């Protein structure tokens, strides 16, 4: 596959890893925020290639993992209502809510369907005017334009039976929270490549200078991540704290203006609860009032009660990079992909799931 295969060349990977080893003189702690990047790092064993002085910790970059418990409960409740067709990306189906999950709801008779695109949900709404079609709008800034466009199209067409349960989160506020914590150990960030394809990377410049922490926008193939790590190490060794772009083939500083326009038109920034972390102000999106008729939360009048995480689950600490999944007493025993206690074990991009799938023996 062009623009994919060449960034998986093992010989070059070795060479970049050796270059990093030559440059590094002291230990550094680096964090990648995006779950897709976590997945690549684990799947290709990038950490095995890096010199031991480099420690990789994984951030809350999995939107599935950080979707709050009460949002899951709302989803299950809406899905279980009569005449509702509940559509979602596959990842959300097995995330545990307080008592159930969407997969169980399906087993109990709810019409829950996996879609690959929010436009598929709109298509289902068009084809089934007698059903109330709801789409679970989860994701970072990468996915928000697509979800926004789906709502925009629905409004243009005057669809009366389509709505979205919005649970969008934003990366920079989460990074700011991590950097502000007195317990923070992260010294350099790999910024999420596809989020930056949409938003550009100018938002990270303030963070880099406020906290004097270097950031490199990284892609998703192994060579992209190795190169991003190499650039971070250079900055750290030289005492710089700038925002650099490794993923130049898909990212520029301004981002995608057409996508940003839709975001501004359809969504507004709001506070969001991050599962395992807590509320972060101005860290998510919700639908603007002009699109209220497409807002599932408003339509179905959902007020979830506050739900508690299982006490043994340390997702909070894992999501902030303060603990590794292997540190958790439940990991692999009471908490497995089949019987998850927390979200990072369920999502295919969750750190715990990645460790369970690829690293259990370490």
């Amino acid at each position, binding site marked *: *596959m*062009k*623009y*994919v*295969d*060449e*960034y998986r*060349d093992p*010989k*070059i990977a*070795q*060479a*970049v890893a*050796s*270059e990093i080893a030559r440059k590094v003189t002291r230990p550094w702690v680096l964090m990648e925020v*995006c*779950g*897709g990047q976590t997945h690549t790092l684990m799947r290709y064993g990038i950490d095995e290639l890096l010199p031991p002085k480099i420690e990789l910790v994984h951030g809350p970059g*999995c*939107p*599935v993992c950080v979707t709050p418990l009460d949002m899951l409960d709302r989803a299950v409740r809406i899905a279980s209502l009569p005449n509702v067709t509940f559509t979602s*990306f596959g*990842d959300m189906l097995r995330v545990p809510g307080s008592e159930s999950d969407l997969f169980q709801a399906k087993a109990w008779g709810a019409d829950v369907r996996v879609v*690959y*695109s*929010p*436009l*598929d949900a709109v298509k289902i709404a068009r084809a089934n005017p007698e059903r109330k079609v709801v789409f679970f709008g*989860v*994701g*970072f800034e*990468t*996915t928000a*334009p*697509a979800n926004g*466009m789906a709502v*925009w*199209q629905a409004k*243009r067409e005057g669809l009366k039976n389509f709505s979205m349960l919005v649970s969008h989160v934003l990366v920079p506020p989460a990074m700011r929270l991590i950097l502000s914590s007195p317990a923070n150990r992260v010294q350099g960030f790999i910024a*999420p*490549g*596809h*989020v930056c*394809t*949409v938003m550009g990377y100018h938002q990270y410049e303030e963070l880099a200078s406020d906290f004097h922490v270097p950031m490199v926008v990284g892609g*998703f193939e192994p*060579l992209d991540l190795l*190169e991003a790590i190499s650039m971070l190490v250079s900055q750290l060794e030289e005492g710089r704290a700038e925002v650099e772009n*490794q993923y*130049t*083939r*898909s*990212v520029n500083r301004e981002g*995608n203006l*057409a*996508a940003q326009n*839709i975001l501004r038109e359809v969504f507004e920034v709001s506070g969001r609860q991050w599962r395992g972390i807590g509320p972060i102000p101005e860290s998510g999106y919700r639908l603007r009032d002009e699109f209220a008729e497409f807002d599932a939360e408003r339509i179905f009048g959902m007020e979830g009660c506050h739900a508690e995480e299982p006490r043994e689950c340390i997702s909070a600490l894992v999501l902030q990079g303060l603990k590794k999944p292997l540190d958790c007493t439940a990991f692999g025993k009471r908490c497995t992909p089949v019987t998850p206690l927390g979200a990072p074990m369920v*999502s295919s*991009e969750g750190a715990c799931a990645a460790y369970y799938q690829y690293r259990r023996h370490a």
Partner: protein
Amino acid sequence: MCLAVPGRLLSIEGDDPAFRVGRVDFCGVKRTVNLAFTPDAEPGDFLLVHVGFALTRVDEEEAHRTYQYLAQIGALAEEGLAPLDQVRLAPLDQVAIAPFNPEEIAP
């Protein structure tokens, strides 16, 4: 969740910018993709696609530059890496596999 894959735009349909769609080829698999966020895309371009939408055009010059840079690092370590335009995509009916080498299995 941020899974986005590059594919080549083959053809475009529709005039209304929000509903403009293209046929995109991902290594032999073709899908219809919404082009609302890439109004300048033209057939032949490589697009980065996420959940049914093209998010950007892949900047082929930058891709080449990135790869050349990486290849150089690789070349310093070992000779003979293929330049980008010679990266071979296996013909569709050819299954390219390496011979099994028991020594390569980690103990």
